[in-house]
Every structure is written in structure tokens, then in C-alpha cells.
């Protein structure tokens, strides 16, 4: 049996090593760390299932295919439950063996890749703050500081045009620094921490602040922001700064994707136990295929109007902030007609929810 299998598998890029019982097999597994293991369930001494358990305990990523006797579906299922990748019932043809070996190896490669990617992602997340702040933020900050300094020193020597150029340089740098800040937010800051400082806030205040921030930007494109608050509007429990950031974000997008001379409607109203805030524009709209990915990191639509730039993090951050508030954010859009983004936020409860798990005394 071993010999014939070896013959089938050997050659090509496979190297086959065999063991004739469980104990010997386990020793070999530790020694050569194979990419794929075929394990007969019926063996003298240590049973196949025991061997499987031991392999999985020591090498959780190892791909094991069990070979079962005829009509022993139960033990095959048992083995699968214990972490076998697949099973091959006896008797099998050489073609079946090759096929399952190929699938097993492919699976092993994918598992390894996934693990490596996960590790990389974690490393990136952990080191991102340090890398970004030191390697990017410090030099940019020093640059900006020197522009500030130069403008102060040269105040009376610069022509109007030169002053404007300095101003543009400063605003470009500021945009870059802001961008870095949002990267840091996404990758390193635990947004759940916001909850610790939640307090009752007025949605009308949030709207007013957001409009104030975006107004200049809108005026430059001759876009009118029509803001309406349907009173009475109950307070919500939240963080004013970050909710304002969300509304600013939505308004900025609306301005960005609107045609000049257009208008944007910002509206807040209570609806049952929720406060709804919606931002409606009559801009370019969003293609149907882009909608499902809209709130994901780095998601940007495929059909971008000319001259529009961004990194696709704004909506992802907004979604996280809204979700931390126990709310949701949704979008409706028709290409060529415009989009409506709606935030639902739960109204603040009169009494706080039952306090988290009371201390247990033993």
C-alpha cells in the first residue's frame, strides 16, 4: 500500500517519506514538517485518530488527509471533526490520490498565505503609528513650521502673488497632514474609546458646526447648503467632535461630487427612538456596483469625476464613528441624479442602561 502510493505521488515536485506506524509518523512529522500528510486511520498501535489529534495539537496548520477503509463513513466524519482536511476511502485510483494530494497541497499553501498575511497586517497595524508619525509627519511638520516662519519673517517683503503661493503651499501641506491623521485614526486608534466620554449632545449643534466648517468650500463652488432641523429634536448620547466630523465628511463629499451652482440639503428629524440626519446632493451619484463597498477602507468609486481626489477613508471612518454611537449609516443613490446619505442615531435614554457586569465577589 505504502509503496504503491509512493509510486503514484513521487516524481514531479513531490518528495514522499513514509512511516509504517503512528509513533514513527509523529516523529517524522516533527522532523521534516511535511506540506501534506496522508494518514491511514487503521493502524497497529497508536490509532489514526490519536495520531491526527497529536499532529493537529502540535502543528495546527498541517494539512492531513485521512485514508479510510471501505464504508467507514463514521470514522471519516470523526476525522474531519478533529481537523482532517479531507478523506480518501479505500480503494482509490491513482488519479484520485493525485487529485486529492494536489488539493491538499493547494489548501496548505492558502493556509500559510493567510497566516502570513494576518501576521503582516497585525505588524502593520502595530507599527503604523510609529512609522507614519516619525517618517512622514515629523518632516512634513518641520516643513510647515518653516513656511509659517518664512511668511512671518518676509511679511513685508513678499508680493501679494508670492504670499498667495505661500498660502497654497501651506494648505497643500495641511491637507497632507490631515490625511496622515485619518490614516492614523483608521489603523491605530481604538474608536470604541470614544464611548467613555459620551454625553448628551444636541444634533442641531453638530449640524451647525459642520455647516460652518464646510461653508467656505461650498461657496467657492457656488453650492448652497440648505439646513433644516425638525423640532423638537431629542438629544442623543455621543461625542460631539467625532459626530461633527461625520457630518463634515458627508457634506464635503456632497460638495465634492456636486455640480457647480447645485444645492445640498442637510436635514435632521426625530423618528421614533431615533434621530435621522440626512445629506442629499444633486451631484454625479454613485454607480450601483460601487454601493456595497462604499463604507469600506480605501473604497473609492470607479467612476470618479475629473479633478476629484481623496483616499477613500472618509466614509469608512464615518461608519465606524456612527456605529460606536449605536447607529447606522446608509446610502441611496442614482447615477446622474445624486445621493442621499442617512445617519440613524439612537435617542439618549433617560436612564443609563444597566451598568456593565457588577463585580463578582468570591
Amino acid at each position: 500500500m505504502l509503496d504503491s502510493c509512493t509510486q503514484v505521488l513521487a516524481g514531479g515536485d513531490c518528495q514522499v517519506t513514509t512511516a509504517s506506524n503512528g509513533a514513527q509518523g509523529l516523529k517524522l512529522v516533527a522532523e521534516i514538517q511535511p506540506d501534506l500528510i496522508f494518514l491511514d486511520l487503521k493502524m497497529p498501535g497508536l490509532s489514526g485518530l490519536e495520531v491526527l489529534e497529536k499532529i493537529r495539537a502540535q502543528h495546527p496548520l498541517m494539512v492531513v488527509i485521512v485514508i479510510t477503509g471501505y464504508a467507514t463513513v463514521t470514522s471519516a466524519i470523526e476525522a474531519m471533526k478533529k481537523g482532517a482536511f479531507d478523506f480518501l476511502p479505500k480503494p482509490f485510483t491513482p488519479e484520485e490520490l493525485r487529485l486529492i494530494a494536489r488539493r491538499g497541497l493547494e489548501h496548505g499553501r492558502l493556509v500559510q498565505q493567510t497566516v502570513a498575511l494576518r501576521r503582516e497586517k497585525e505588524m502593520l497595524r502595530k507599527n503604523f503609528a510609529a512609522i507614519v508619525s516619525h517618517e512622514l509627519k515629523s518632516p512634513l511638520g518641520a516643513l510647515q513650521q518653516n513656511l509659517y516662519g518664512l511668511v512671518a519673517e518676509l511679511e513685508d517683503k513678499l508680493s501679494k502673488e508670492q504670499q498667495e503661493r505661500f498660502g497654497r503651499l501651506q494648505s497643500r501641506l495641511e491637507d497632507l497632514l490631515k490625511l496622515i491623521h485619518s490614516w492614523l485614526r483608521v489603523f491605530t486608534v481604538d474608536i470604541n474609546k470614544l464611548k467613555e466620554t459620551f454625553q448628551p449632545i444636541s444634533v442641531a449643534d453638530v449640524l451647525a458646526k459642520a455647516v460652518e466648517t464646510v461653508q467656505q468650500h461650498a461657496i467657492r463652488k457656488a453650492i448652497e447648503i440648505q439646513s433644516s432641523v425638525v423640532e423638537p429634536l431629542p438629544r442623543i448620547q455621543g461625542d460631539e467632535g467625532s459626530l461633527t466630523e461625520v457630518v463634515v465628511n458627508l457634506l464635503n463629499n456632497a460638495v465634492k461630487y456636486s455640480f457647480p451652482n447645485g444645492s445640498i440639503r442637510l436635514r435632521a428629524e426625530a423618528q421614533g427612538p431615533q434621530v435621522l440626519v440626512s445629506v442629499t446632493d444633486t451631484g454625479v451619484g454613485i454607480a450601483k456596483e460601487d454601493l456595497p463597498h462604499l463604507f469600506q477602507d480605501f473604497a473609492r468609486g470607479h467612476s470618479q469625476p475629473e479633478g476629484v481626489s481623496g483616499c477613500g477613508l472618509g466614509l469608512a471612518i464615518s461608519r465606524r464613528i456612527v456605529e460606536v454611537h449605536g447607529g447606522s449609516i446608509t446610502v441611496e443613490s442614482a447615477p446622474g441624479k445624486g445621493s442621499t446619505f442617512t445617519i440613524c442615531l439612537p435617542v439618549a435614554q433617560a436612564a443609563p442602561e444597566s451598568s456593565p457586569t457588577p463585580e463578582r465577589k468570591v
Partner: protein
Amino acid sequence: MSEPKRLLMIDDDPDFVAGIKAILVKAKYEVDVAYNPKDGFQALKSKPYDLLLLDVMMGRGAEGIMIARKLGKDPKLRELPVLIITGIREQMAFLFPGQAVHPHFVPVDELVEKPVAPKLLLEKVEALLKTAEMRKAKSK
């Protein structure tokens, strides 16, 4: 005209220092600079200053904080107002878990983020100097 106020800045990034210094000199302050905590402390001991501008993230970590703590223990330097200039707010929160983002190192201090716009910088510096002066007048 009264004597110009003397400021000391401790920060390990010479380019950043140049940008800050330009603004302060333009506003008629006298500015000395130290590029590491050791020289900075030396300078503080050798000359009287009206205000310290301090970067907290220097060298291998928060070396600036060590200076702030040392100042707090020195009976003479304890009164010196400190304007903390930091590269990143989140890191501050990280350094002082459980504390507000604005940790008070010394009785009179303020915190600004890099880069800092001239208007804000001058406002903070003036406010700190004023508070320090008022306190001095009171104690007399």
C-alpha cells in the same frame, strides 16, 4: 520699552526649531535653543528664562517628559511656564493611559501640536507669560 522676554526651546529637530524660532524672533522674543535634554537642562541652570518651549518626544521616547518632571522637583525652576509642543496627540494619550489628553506636568503649562500656526503659537506664549507674571506679582 521693556526688556525682551527670554525663551528657551528644547527640541531635537533643528529644522522644526528654525521654523518656530523665526516666528518668535519676529515677534521680538529672545530665543535660545538646545537640541537635546542635557544641553537644555544646562541652559536652564545657567540663565534665567521666562518660558520654556519643550518637545516631549525626543530621542528614544518621551525624554522631554523627564525634563518636565525634573523641573517640577526644582524649587527655582518649578515656576517656569512650559509650552509643550508635541508631534502627536494620540501618543500623548498612549503615554498617559487613563489620563486626559492634556496632562499637566507643571503648574503652568499648555500643549500645542506640531506644526503650530504662528497666531496660535504667539497667543499661547503670551498667555503663559502673562499668567506667570501675574503669579509673580501676587507672591510679592
